[in-house]
């Protein structure tokens, strides 16, 4: 009974922790980008202020039922995928095969956004969503092949078993034996996180922040929270598969390190066209991850 109570407590507490950490990640991202640009930058808690402001807005334009359901669907889809990612060696809803379920669930969030944006009927938003789905088609292939090579290496499709197999220090991380897969996944992660050069879906200067174009006030606040969770979930896949999980503190340190690398690339890069990005994902990262998969299949 007590164990179940603790488990439920963690299921409620974990999203709150992840939202706060994700917002701090975003704030740190703005600060670090500013330092790279030789600026002073906003305080690290700036995104928390932004969210408070957005939720305290008096009015927000609404275009219909689906317009308000879309962000909620995206947010809850992401919340469910968070439950399948063990954070700090703590399995919330883990079971055997949760990696495959997670890879499916990650698609719900962009689809929810697509439904919401469709009701808004703004051409910029439609372009943004079309780009997001095209980009997804590009990086999902790499992501799945890389995850597949890890599954093949351990013979398991469970995050907890994979983390267990990596326990025992830095030398046991799958980063070393599966270096090619890890490299490919990190490349794909740049697209998953939507950092430059793969920020075509939300290109503020071209298509006026794409899918978010019609959202304001509380809807935008919800999307900020969505973005905060998304960063932790997406870097979390990398941490659990290749960097060996770890305790709560070390888990977030590793996750931030993965985000930090993406951030530094983001700070100095321009943006690809969507066609170029798609082509990129299906050539180099796809080839590297396939090579990694073949090596695992042969050497295992």
């Amino acid at each position, binding site marked *: 009974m007590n164990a179940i109570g603790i488990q439920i407590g963690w299921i409620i507490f974990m999203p709150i922790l992840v939202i706060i950490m994700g917002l701090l990640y975003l704030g740190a991202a703005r600060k670090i980008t500013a330092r790279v640009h*030789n600026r002073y930058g906003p305080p690290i808690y700036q995104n928390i202020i932004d969210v408070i402001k957005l939720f305290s807005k008096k009015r927000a334009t609404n275009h219909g039922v689906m317009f308000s359901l879309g962000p909620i669907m995206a947010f809850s889809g992401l919340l469910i995928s968070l439950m399948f990612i063990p954070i700090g060696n703590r399995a919330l809803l883990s079971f055997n095969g949760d990696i495959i379920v997670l890879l499916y669930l990650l698609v719900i969030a962009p689809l929810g956004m697509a439904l919401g944006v469709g009701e808004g009927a703004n051409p910029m938003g439609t372009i943004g969503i079309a780009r997001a789905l095209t980009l997804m088609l590009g990086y999902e292939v790499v992501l799945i092949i890389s995850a597949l090579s890890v599954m093949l290496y351990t013979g398991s499709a469970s995050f907890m078993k994979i983390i267990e197999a990596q326990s025992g220090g830095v030398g046991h991380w799958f980063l070393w034996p599966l270096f090619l897969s890890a490299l490919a996944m990190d490349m794909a992660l740049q697209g998953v996180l939507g950092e430059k050069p793969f920020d075509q879906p939300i290109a503020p200067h071209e298509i006026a922040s794409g899918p978010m174009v019609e959202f304001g006030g509380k809807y935008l606040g919800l999307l900020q929270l969505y973005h905060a969770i998304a960063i932790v979930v997406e870097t979390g896949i990398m941490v659990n598969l290749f960097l060996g999980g770890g305790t709560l503190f070390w888990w977030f340190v590793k996750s931030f390190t993965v985000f930090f690398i993406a951030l530094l690339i983001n700070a100095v890069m321009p943006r690809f066209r969507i066609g170029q990005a798609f082509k990129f994902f299906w050539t180099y990262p796809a080839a590297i991850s396939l090579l990694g998969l073949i090596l695992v299949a042969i050497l295992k």
Partner: protein
Amino acid sequence: MTKEKAPKGIKGWAQGRSLWMLHFCTGCGAIEMPPTMTSRYDMERFGITPMATPRQADLLLITGYLTVKTLKRVVRSYEQMPDPKYVIGFGSCTVNGGMYWDSYNTIKRLDLYIPVDLYIAGCMPRPEAIIDSFTELIKGIKEGRFDGWIRYRENIEFYKRNQAMVMDIRKWSLDTELAERIWNEVQEERKKRFERATVPHVYELAERIPEGLPK
């Protein structure tokens, strides 16, 4: 109905510390924005970031002169912004017309058409002046001093009448009935004035300062 008030306390603080601005780059004032954003003056340290659409913005910057055609876009953008919203008039052109004081197709006083919270004088104001106005705005928002959107709603007839004097407001205003009525009234007035006129009009200087300014 209770009178709406500007946010105070934690809401006001959050609103002041996180201003997302829509810089409506009409005139030459836009050239002063890049130095304000980039490494030398860096306005992001106050939480001020440029935003791409009016739906996400809190602060509307009118950077320079406004032609009558642009005014229409400005009013439409302003009406799309969610409350609370703030407007900064930027440069002499928005104060009294500046060097376009006798132009036939620019407006001279911005706050006849949309409520302006702060003016920055100068032709053009330097980035220091812009940063100064931002800090003043942040301070004022925390204290709940700026309430432009409330003034706009309370004096909607005044603003719509002024807008109708220079452009067609019927198709795009949020309250189409009100806009239609005011537009017709202004047209009637204008017809009468043309009948009374003794000298032929080359063009009608569209903008006159009305008598009863709202407080």
